[in-house]
């Protein structure tokens, strides 16, 4: 015990020394140095968890590499606007039947032309239950998905009936029901095309992926060290690389990577470690990046709980929400790394409406007390906010609880669980009996992704067990809407409706906290908090 205590003291002293001496860095860098179009730069990353197969990679380490080696039918530009890549057009009149025409001249890195079959075969393979791909549920809207991916047992066929190849440059998709955002969904990695070589030997492909994107693999994947890519000369997309290639450098800890960033040993980092959030501006100067991205944090309630499920408790949740002074917490505790939320959809996402949550997300202690009283109070006058301790959430969870305690007299405690995994286990096992942290990062920058995935009855990320037939109906209408604008409007109404039942309390919108080295310029981050890889310019040495 004595040893542990002295260790804390020493660590504390060092932390003080580090912050004290860290100031004064960050001399401004010339923003328009000569550029080397063939220069490569290094990108902070983590060792991919899986072999590099688009339908099986769902974590950032592998995802970032795959996103650079491949291009899908569509993708999003820096502002979150949809644009065509490998597709010439994706057309539909009813959001259920789609015709996809491909641009001509696209090639895989091995020279094989990209055809309609490259897409259809890849999707059929990825959806097939036999191949147990982690991203297979992305194909669930396509007609015939149940045939290749039955709930139990082996599939009887290996082709989805909804996919038909018309000719080399055209194929059609039929969905089992209308989905207004299906075109948006097509950007996702699971929908990338695959060359013939993939089906011959998937294992070998996982080590040496062949894509159709702006970069191709350069040399072998040096496991746990780095993955090198170089510019692909035959790339046909709209975003031609302004550099020679990206080297994904794998780090074990954010902290060690951050030290490398400060000393120009790694060029771009999209998230600085928690320990550096208060000093990275002074360390990096104008090379520090702090801007909003498509992610949000809420505290959710177990609607399956006997007490919290009662209809009048909606008022209690509204009241609790009004007792939280988000602005002050953001400024003091979170050091401007977040924005105070005014709804369930982040500002940078298409379909965002200002003040969607209305007065319920505004700080008003008097009204808060009144609402909680009207709703019969918090069960037992005490609540907890459960969070995972390995993600740096303790500070805000305690701050939120403090606000609730001070402004309403409800006994609130922040309740840590050691790991993310454990907390997820309890949540998906429906074992919660009070509030818990819920967070969502966009799959694609559209309001539907935030509302439908979390608040539709039985949806994948509906951790609350929340169900509201009216809301479901509204979302169904939105999904069969003719235009994306109309769909957005209906989803906006659904978001407004959430305030009535308040199954979760919106807290914050997330920020990208990143930075880049002196070796690169023109570094911008998109709403996925990824650098626009192809736009990065490498300075001449």
């Amino acid at each position, binding site marked *: 015990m004595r040893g542990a205590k002295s260790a804390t003291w020493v660590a504390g002293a060092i932390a003080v020394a580090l912050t004290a001496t860290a100031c004064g860095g960050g001399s401004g860098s010339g923003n328009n140095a000569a550029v080397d179009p063939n220069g490569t730069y290094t990108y902070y990353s983590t060792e991919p968890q899986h072999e590099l197969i688009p339908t099986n990679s769902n974590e950032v380490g592998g995802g970032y590499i795959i996103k650079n080696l491949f291009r899908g039918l569509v993708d999003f530009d820096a502002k979150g606007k949809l644009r065509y890549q490998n597709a010439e057009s994706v057309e539909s009149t009813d959001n259920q039947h789609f015709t996809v025409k491909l641009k001509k001249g696209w090639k895989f890195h091995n020279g094989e032309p990209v055809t309609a079959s490259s897409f259809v075969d890849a999707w059929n393979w990825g959806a097939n239950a036999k191949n147990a791909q982690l991203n297979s549920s992305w194909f669930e809207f396509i007609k015939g998905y149940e045939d290749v991916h039955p709930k139990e047992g082996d599939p009887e066929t290996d082709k989805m009936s909804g996919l038909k190849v018309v000719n080399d440059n055209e194929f059609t998709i039929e969905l089992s029901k209308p989905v207004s955002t299906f075109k948006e969904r097509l950007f996702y990695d699971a929908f990338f095309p695959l060359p013939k070589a993939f089906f011959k030997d998937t294992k070998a492909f996982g080590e040496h992926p062949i894509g159709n994107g702006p970069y191709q693999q350069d040399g072998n994947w040096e496991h746990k060290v780095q993955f090198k890519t170089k510019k692909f000369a035959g790339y046909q997309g709209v975003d031609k690389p302004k550099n020679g290639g990206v080297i994904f450098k794998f780090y*074990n800890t954010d902290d060690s990577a951050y030290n490398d960033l400060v000393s120009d*040993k790694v060029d771009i980092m999209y998230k600085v470690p928690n320990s550096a959030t208060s000093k990275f501006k002074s360390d990096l100067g104008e090379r520090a990046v702090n801007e909003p991205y498509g992610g949000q944090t809420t505290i959710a309630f177990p609607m399956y709980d006997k007490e919290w499920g009662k209809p009048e408790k909606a008022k209690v949740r509204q009241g609790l929400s009004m007792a939280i002074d988000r602005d002050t917490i953001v400024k003091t505790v979170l050091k401007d790394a977040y924005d105070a939320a005014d709804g369930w959809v982040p500002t940078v996402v298409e379909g965002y409406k200002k003040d969607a949550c209305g007065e319920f997300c505004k700080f008003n202690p008097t009204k808060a007390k009144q609402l909680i009283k009207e709703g019969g109070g918090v069960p037992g006058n005490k609540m907890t906010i459960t969070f995972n301790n390995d993600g740096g959430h303790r500070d805000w969870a305690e701050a939120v609880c403090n606000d609730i305690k001070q402004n309403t007299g409800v006994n609130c405690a922040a309740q840590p669980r*050691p790991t993310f995994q454990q907390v997820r286990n309890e949540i998906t096992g429906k074992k919660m009996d009070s509030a818990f942290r819920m967070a969502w990062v966009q799959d694609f920058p559209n309001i539907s992704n935030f509302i439908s995935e979390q608040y539709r009855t039985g949806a994948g990320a509906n951790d609350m067990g929340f169900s509201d037939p009216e809301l479901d109906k509204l979302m169904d209408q939105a999904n069969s809407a003719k235009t994306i604008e109309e769909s957005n409007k209906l989803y906006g109404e659904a978001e407004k409706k959430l305030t009535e039942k308040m199954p979760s309390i919106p807290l914050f919108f997330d920020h990208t906290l990143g930075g880049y080295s002196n070796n690169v310029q023109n570094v911008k981050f998109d709403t996925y908090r990824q650098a626009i890889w192809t736009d990065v310019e490498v300075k001449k040495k």
Partner: protein
Amino acid sequence: MGRYVARRLLQMIPVFIGTTLLIFLMVYSLPGDPIKALFGDKAADPATVARLRHQFGLDQPLLTQYWNYLTGLFKGDFGQSFTGRPVADLIGEAFPVTIRLALYAFAIEVVIGVALGMLTGLKRGKFIDQLVLVLTLVVISVPVFVLGFLAQFFLGLKWQLITPTVQDSMNLGQLTVPAIVLGALSLAYVTRLTRTTVAENLRADYMRTALAKGLPKSRRLGVHLMRNSLIPVVTFLGTDLGMLMGGAIVTEGIFNVQGIGNTLYRAIQTSEGPTVVGIVTVLVLIYLVSSLVVDLLYAVLDPRIRYA
């Protein structure tokens, strides 16, 4: 001697089975479901989960799983990690790095530690002795991670003498600072241990005899004194090699060395049973072998110790 070695080797079998079984049981009782965790935030698709569970044999009783694992091991198969890569590959990538780092640290602690220990043991009470005693006390009382961060901060960021993290884990030059950090604690122990035994043995009868016989100083110190003084040191060093490999977790984390420590740490975090058990199995083997080597070395150092 041969029989002794055989007996020791046979003893390894129950130790080996016991330890792996214990680790196996511990890892599988960790909270969280590693297969569901593969899906991240997304809801896991039950059909895929069931298929993966079957693929990794997780749908069988624990003891059957252990038996399968053990029989696989004898065929040289370490199994597959939940992310699809053979554990043998993971081990093959990470161990050479850590062995390199650990041996480097080991070499530093042996050479410098024994030298300093001899020096201070012979010059007991002099200034140099006091100085080394204070310095080693400092090293012993400062935790390794503090030492690592300090080295990284001052040498890497402040004075820019080294790169803050290791860029190439197989480059011995870059491993120097991590190796010193890793070996520092044991270095201090080796120094103090050597100093004590040297000081003690200086007054032993055989040393006086050697002096009386008129043996030259180099022989007195080099053969008579050192050989006898090294016995406890060798014991310490033997177990220390295993410690270094395991203790590399902290150092590897700070300096981003892509070794076994990191692989193990990650695997524990994600309840990657096969990887954890595989790595620890190899670590156990290293412990067993190094302690056997230590026991055999006794006989070499002290002819009075003989094994039947």
